[in-house]
């Protein structure tokens, strides 16, 4: 018993919080990368997450392609559509008010969700857990469904991998430098327009990857992204707009905070993240990991 709560219930909610946090971290990571370099608030991120889940679902339903290939293909499909969207539309909006990028991606999200709602309804479709990760294991103090453990591990590995790629590689140094001063990096001879395109594709692919990871946990539904994206924006704001590390750490932290609230005061669990956001904005307007402007 912890504070009068059975330990199983406590750890169970903590795990749920960690799973949710894994998705918050993956999604806010992509948003932070895109915002950092493109200065675009990508409102289509939730729709791209949904697209990743649907890509997996449709690959399985129509082509019999299972979970493991889909884990590569779904992000690839979403990433390529992201690249096309950036080339055709977003790249034309960089020189004008950032509000247009926000409005465009917001509209794009509505269109995508509308189209999928038209064809698939809102009830949601189940996606089977891959056999290799089916079942669960008794940890002694609680029962852990293996797939959920996999989601936490996979998300951690991806987040750390992307963070290392940004901090330690040549591509990452271009990305960081262009985030600070894009025109100077371009004057040095780096093809910054191409870098912007690839970065948007990378951010979209991360959302797609989160989507296919989420498919066996949540239902594959056209609205799965719009339910999540508002929370993810709160995560990005708490972490500090554009801070990569902030997005990752805050994603897990707020997932856990949400889980803990479910244990101690379930009524507040839906709003706790926004309460934290309000407090952070009052105390540190640039976010926990943001640099004060």
């Amino acid at each position: 018993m912890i504070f009068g709560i059975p330990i199983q219930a406590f750890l169970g909610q903590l795990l749920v919080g960690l799973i949710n946090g894994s998705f918050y971290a993956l999604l806010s990571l992509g948003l932070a990368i895109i915002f950092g370099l493109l200065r675009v608030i990508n409102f289509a991120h939730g729709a791209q997450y949904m697209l990743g889940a649907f890509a997996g679902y449709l690959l399985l339903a129509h082509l019999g392609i299972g979970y493991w290939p889909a884990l590569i293909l779904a992000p690839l499909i979403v990433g390529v559509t992201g690249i096309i969207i950036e080339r055709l539309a977003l790249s034309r909006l960089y020189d004008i008010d950032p509000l247009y990028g926000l409005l465009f991606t917001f509209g794009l999200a509505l269109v995508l969700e509308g189209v999928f709602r038209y064809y698939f309804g809102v009830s949601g479709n189940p996606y089977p857990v891959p056999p290799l990760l089916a079942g669960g294991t008794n940890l002694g103090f609680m029962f852990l469904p293996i797939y959920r453990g996999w989601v936490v591990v996979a998300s951690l590995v991806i987040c750390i991998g992307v963070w290392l790629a940004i901090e330690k590689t040549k591509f990452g140094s271009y990305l960081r430098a262009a985030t600070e001063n894009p025109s100077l990096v371009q004057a040095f001879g780096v093809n910054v327009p191409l870098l912007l395109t690839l970065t948007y594709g990378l951010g979209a692919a991360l959302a797609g990857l989160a989507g296919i990871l989420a498919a066996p946990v949540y239902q594959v539904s056209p609205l799965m992204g719009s339910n999540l994206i508002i929370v993810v924006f709160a995560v990005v704001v708490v972490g500090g707009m554009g801070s990569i590390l902030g997005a990752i750490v805050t994603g897990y932290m707020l997932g856990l905070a949400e889980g803990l609230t479910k244990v101690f005061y379930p009524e507040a669990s839906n709003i706790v993240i926004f309460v934290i956001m309000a407090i952070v904005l009052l105390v540190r307007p640039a976010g926990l990991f943001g640099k004060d402007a």
Partner: protein
Amino acid sequence: MNSAAPLLSVRGLNAWYGESHALHGVDLDVFPSETVTLLGRNGVGKTTTLRAIMGLIRKRTGRIDFDGKDLMRLPLHRTAHAGIGFVPEERGIFATLTVDENLILPPVVAPGGMSVEEIFDLFPNLKERRNSPGTKLSGGEQQMLAIARILRTGVKVLLLDEPTEGLAPVIVQRIGELLAALKKRGMTVLLVEQNFRFASRVADRFYLMEHGKVMAEFPVGELNERMTLLHDVLGV
């Protein structure tokens, strides 16, 4: 003087910041291995000239020929590959990159640039601090780094904007020595400089700018006879 064809030739260059017309037909030539300094008061368009040549200002008309290439037609990220490097007035050292990463950031555009080892021999301070964030360096070290990273790329012409601004005299002297060493290596430099004493030591030739265009041109040998003009225009 140089009888060879100019390496960089600018004719009738006009440039705008938004609606504001900043350059009104700048003409200038820079010959191979020459150090040319643009003089003039604040706001006459010296920095603007460099930024327009580099392509950082896109709203521009006129001709810019460099090494047989028409720079007006190149997108910004192709200009450096033509063989031209830019060191901005604010130095442009990246805070989120280490000294090492700052140094190797600009892509090598031609053979013949300095190796990282040569650069560290020339700037031992940078080597000691190679893993620190770039903006943790002193102002002088940041200026050295800003110049050093361009020397790695193998460009033929260096556009150097106010390298001595805000620096201690001993550092200014080091930058002067650096420019002399670069000249020995055959580097061509187009310099913007407020520090007239510094400019008179390093430059071969001067362009005096006023109201967004060139109003006089003279070699370093004529500096003494031009002092009255310089006094009137610059207040030095």
